[in-house]
């Protein structure tokens, strides 16, 4: 890794790491006795380790060949591994909190292990840790390939990737200590938020600079999807985290907004985060890796561009569908509802486009589990967007809101769409990136596919059932006009579904562990495939659709 850096670049990296370590030390000193102090030590350790990694290689040989002649893949490789590690951690937390709902004793009496603290570790772990690392890594790959140019700079890709992981670590460790802003998907406290802004601005600049160096006149559509993800997430993050720290030496802040104002800001953020974190970036993945793997261009390229602009212009208005029947003005709710229904059009355009691309290549889909991951992801994308548009209709939401139906919808999107497209892309990318002949075990890919699919289906079906039962029980009246069921009655009715969900999640988690194992074994044991040309991806065209047995 270090052999790609010149001496001057190593010194710069050491300076940045040293500076970071100093900030950590300052935080540890100032925040003594507060969770911020603990975070200070974590920051110090993080940058300290980086400092020593670079320092130990300071005088090793420098790169000799012209680096502009190849792509810069080291950060992509590390990003893929980090994404998989976070997947295992985050999904383990998911299975744990799911089991806590079925068997509350699994909390083991600890304050840190309560549902309220572990749940955000799950959500941030999978969304930011797994999803975010996968997005950053694949964006590095795609922006270079589609621009036919190397990333500018050697330090900034590392800064973005590692800086983002530091944010994830601060977030997750904070939740366990009880640090939270109480804003879903934005729980991390003020100093972590400020750090993320720095990282994100560097990311945006890096992307724009790569595009401006491109040797290909056209900007491939996947880049637009990734760019919208980066830009919009930056704006959302800044607006939703506007807060006044209670003191400069503690991890506690107060939001600039209050009451329904705060709720509106939160869900303006929340749904746009679904849109631009969990959707557009992953659509970028889909639009690159699906055609690549299938070996045929996207069915309608024109439609992919149209649906991009459709999604961008519709999504930003829908946040208020999370606040139906609240103090939010009625017309704002109606606005959110209307745009939510309109959103179905560009969403289905993407899902349909992906499936039509595979039309005529079903033989490949049958034989190649990697392609099947991508196909199922498109199916679940179509399913969850249809469901979402339906749930956004006010009377339907009256039934679904507060129930497990929402959780079912979330995971149809998160497991069925986000995770499946990511796993598919990782299997397509790993041999290319490490220049291996195939994946270590195609049987393991096959197993992973069926585990992931059955886990998702079990999860989603049990939540649909439990959600609708819950919703109906809460609105059933007796003849005298009183509520028929108590809350505890509905809780008892949920129990079997919670067990089923935990089981489905366990299958899904097993699949993720297999994936990590398979990728590591591929790196360690599969013979190198010497690229025919000097060009890193030249081997890919010759890659068999069906990975050969090991």
């Amino acid at each position, binding site marked *: 890794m270090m052999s790609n850096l010149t001496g001057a670049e190593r010194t710069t990296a050491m300076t940045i790491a040293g500076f970071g370590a100093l900030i950590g030390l300052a935080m540890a000193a100032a925040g003594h006795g507060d969770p911020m102090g603990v975070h200070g030590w974590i920051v110090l350790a993080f940058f300290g380790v980086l400092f020593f990694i670079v320092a130990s290689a300071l005088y090793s040989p420098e790169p000799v060949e012209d680096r502009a*002649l190849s792509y810069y893949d080291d950060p992509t490789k590390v990003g893929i591994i980090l994404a998989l590690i976070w997947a295992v951690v985050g999904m383990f937390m998911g299975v744990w909190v799911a089991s806590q709902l079925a068997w509350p004793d699994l909390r083991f009496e600890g304050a840190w292990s309560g549902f309220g603290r572990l749940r955000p570790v799950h959500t941030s772990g999978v969304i930011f840790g797994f999803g975010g690392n996968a997005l950053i890594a694949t964006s590095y790959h795609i922006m270079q390939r589609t621009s036919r140019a*190397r990333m500018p700079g050697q330090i900034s890709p590392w800064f973005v990737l590692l800086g983002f992981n530091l944010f994830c670590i601060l977030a997750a460790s904070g939740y366990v200590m009880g640090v939270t802003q109480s804003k879903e998907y934005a729980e991390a406290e003020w100093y972590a938020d400020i750090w993320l802004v720095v990282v994100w601005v560097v990311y945006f600049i890096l992307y724009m600079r790569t595009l401006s160096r491109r*040797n290909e006149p*056209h900007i491939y559509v996947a880049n637009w999807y990734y760019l919208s993800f980066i830009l919009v997430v930056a*704006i959302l993050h800044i607006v939703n985290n506007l807060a006044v720290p209670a003191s400069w030496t503690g991890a506690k802040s107060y939001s600039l907004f209050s009451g*329904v104002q705060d709720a509106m800001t939160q869900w303006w953020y929340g749904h746009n985060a679904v849109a631009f974190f969990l959707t557009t970036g992953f659509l970028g993945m889909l639009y690159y890796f699906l055609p*690549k793997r299938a070996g045929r261009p996207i069915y309608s*390229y024109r439609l992919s561009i149209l649906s991009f602009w459709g999604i961008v212009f519709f999504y930003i208005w829908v946040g208020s569908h999370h606040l139906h029947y609240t103090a939010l003005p009625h017309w704002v709710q109606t606005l959110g509802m209307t745009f939510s229904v309109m959103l179905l059009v560009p969403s289905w355009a993407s899902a349909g486009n992906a499936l039509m691309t595979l039309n005529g290549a079903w033989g490949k889909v049958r034989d190649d589990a990697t392609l099947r991951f991508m196909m199922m992801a498109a199916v679940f994308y179509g399913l969850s967007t249809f469901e979402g548009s339906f749930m956004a209709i006010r009377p339907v939401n009256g039934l679904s809101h507060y129930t497990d139906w929402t959780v079912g919808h979330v995971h149809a999107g998160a497991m069925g769409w986000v995770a499946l497209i990511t796993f598919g892309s990782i299997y397509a990318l790993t041999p290319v990136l490490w220049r291996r002949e195939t994946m270590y075990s195609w049987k393991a890919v096959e197993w992973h596919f069926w585990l992931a699919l059955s886990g998702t289906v079990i999860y989603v079906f049990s939540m649909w059932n439990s959600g609708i039962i819950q919703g109906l029980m809460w609105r059933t009246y007796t003849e005298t006009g009183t509520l028929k069921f108590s809350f505890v009655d509905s809780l008892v009715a949920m129990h079997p579904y919670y067990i089923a969900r935990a089981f489905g999640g366990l299958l899904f988690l097993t699949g993720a562990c297999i994936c990590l194992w398979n990728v590591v074994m591929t790196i360690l044991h599969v013979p190198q495939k010497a690229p025919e040309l000097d060009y890193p991806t030249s081997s890919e065209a010759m890659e068999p659709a069906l990975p050969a047995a090991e």
Partner: protein
Amino acid sequence: MSILTFLIPVTLCMGAIGLAAFFWSLRHGQYEDLSGDAERILHDDDAPLVPAHTPRPPVATKETTK
């Protein structure tokens, strides 16, 4: 709902950025050869190129839409 006097302008600004980007893409020949553009990502068997400061003009391919 004073928050709306903040969020709606922010949202409109985001829309305006999107619109500006869209017009940029129209003016800069991004949609001249859609089927060629879709096809080209599949071929990476040419030699890597050193960064050019001005992107070369689009090369029409057989499948050109126009």
